């Protein structure tokens, strides 16, 4: 199965491990991601002012370009990219005015027909949990995993249509299927403070304490996320604040890659501040 793929800016530079582990783990599950030939930044945030059409143009162009690739699908893994592409697509499809305005900026007509897919959805719907189990059942046996969704994947539920916005379970299903012991903790859809890292890093530090502390108190050994900014805020901040809980924070695709026994160089685990390699590398078959 081949799916057009939008990596996003950060995955080509400061979160290369998310890019390489996504490609490698999906490839191991029989899904080939084909990077779009030409792409720009998606815009990262969905504009919430009703008259801000310009904030949607880049995402609209990416969607239009992906529809040209055929197949009617577009995969993207970064939570911000996924959020923006999905919401802009929804707006184009359901809002006549948005559709008309955006199309005057595009080089071709686009009406919202592409289905934006997250690799988590690809794992569950396109590949299937049974296949994942077959490939790597029990490889994560006993590992205590905290699945962290953050804000952008699940909200707003009506537009994202991703999972239950208060208690999503798609990551838990996948890692349970691989034998991991997923921990239940109350902060899995809490926000890490996001771009406030540039404006009020004290707030982000406090959120990191709450989220990591909550997962640690439930015995989590590793936290997984799909967002480079969550990963940065929860992990790299510990360089400045050593008192924060030291649970490794990795991308879910990296843990999936461990379960699938992928080679170390395709995972990019060396990018993180708190090293997850001592905990994880030995688990590969």
């Amino acid at each position: 199965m081949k799916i057009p793929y939008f990596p996003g800016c950060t995955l080509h530079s400061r979160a290369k491990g998310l890019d390489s582990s996504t490609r490698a783990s999906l490839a191991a599950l029989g899904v080939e991601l084909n990077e779009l030939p030409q792409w720009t930044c998606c815009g990262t945030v969905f504009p919430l002012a009703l008259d801000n059409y310009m904030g949607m143009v880049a995402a609209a162009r990416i969607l239009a370009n992906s529809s040209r690739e055929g197949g009617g699908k577009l995969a993207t893994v970064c939570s911000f990219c996924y959020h923006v592409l999905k919401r802009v697509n929804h707006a184009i499809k359901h809002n006549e005015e948005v559709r008309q305005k955006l199309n005057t900026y595009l080089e071709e007509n686009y009406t919202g027909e592409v289905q934006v897919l997250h690799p988590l959805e690809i794992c569950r719907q396109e590949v299937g949990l049974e296949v994942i189990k077959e490939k790597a059942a029990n490889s994560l046996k006993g590992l205590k995993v905290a699945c962290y969704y953050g804000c952008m994947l699940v909200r707003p539920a009506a537009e994202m249509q991703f999972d239950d916005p208060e208690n999503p379970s798609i990551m838990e299903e996948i890692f349970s299927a691989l034998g991991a012991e997923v921990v239940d903790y109350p902060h899995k859809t809490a926000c890490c403070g996001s771009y406030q890292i540039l404006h009020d890093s004290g707030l982000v530090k406090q959120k990191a304490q709450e989220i990591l502390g909550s997962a640690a108190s439930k015995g989590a050994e590793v936290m997984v996320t799909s967002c480079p900014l969550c990963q940065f805020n929860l992990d790299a901040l510990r360089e400045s604040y050593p008192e924060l809980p030291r649970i490794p924070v990795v991308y879910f695709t990296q843990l999936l890659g461990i379960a699938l026994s992928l080679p170390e160089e395709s995972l990019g685990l060396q990018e993180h501040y708190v090293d997850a390699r001592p905990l994880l590398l030995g688990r590969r078959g």
Partner: protein
Amino acid sequence: MAEEKMVSIYIMGKQYKVPYGLTIMKAMEYAGYRFIRGCGCRGGFCGACGTVYRKPGDFRLKVGLACQTMVEDGMHLTQIPFYPANKATYNLEELTPTLGTLLTLYPEMTRCLGCNSCTRICPQELSVMDYMAAAQRGDIEKVAHMSFECIMCGLCASRCPAEIVQYNVALLCRRLYGRHIAPRAQHLAKRVEEIKAGKFDEEIEKLMKMSKEELQKLYNARDIEP
């Protein structure tokens, strides 16, 4: 007969009758303008004479170099020879060819909205938006190649709603590429060694002693690259 060969153009809103077939630059000079700035090579290379214009019945802005674009009847135009663009100062030797360098010197480049105004305005028909996308990913080599034909006219910056100075970001990338990424020319180092070792001293000595006539003869008979 002579009447038919004249066209009406509007320079900064004022109407002038100018002969058909002139470039915008020649037409402006015909109309009485004298270029002290906003005019350089007159050959379409230097980028000094960026001009924006509109044609009747079309709301879209068009661009061209005044020295290369022909006047048309009803054209409204103005030259934008200079744009007060942000330009970082740096010592190239001290920089590393990384995304961090780009972001430190031009953090505003991440404000790009993806509106494509820069690409549409570029008189060199470069994919400006796409090279800026590469810059945001830290792909310096790609920016250097994609922006190679930039003539620094500044029209992209004049149109950017995010106030990015695309051509200066691209210049930085080409410099970083040339200094830190592209492989060093081995033959150059070799030749410098040869010069230092005195391999050409004798030849120079010979030239120094030649008369002007001899030198002229030699110069005219030199190998010329096709």
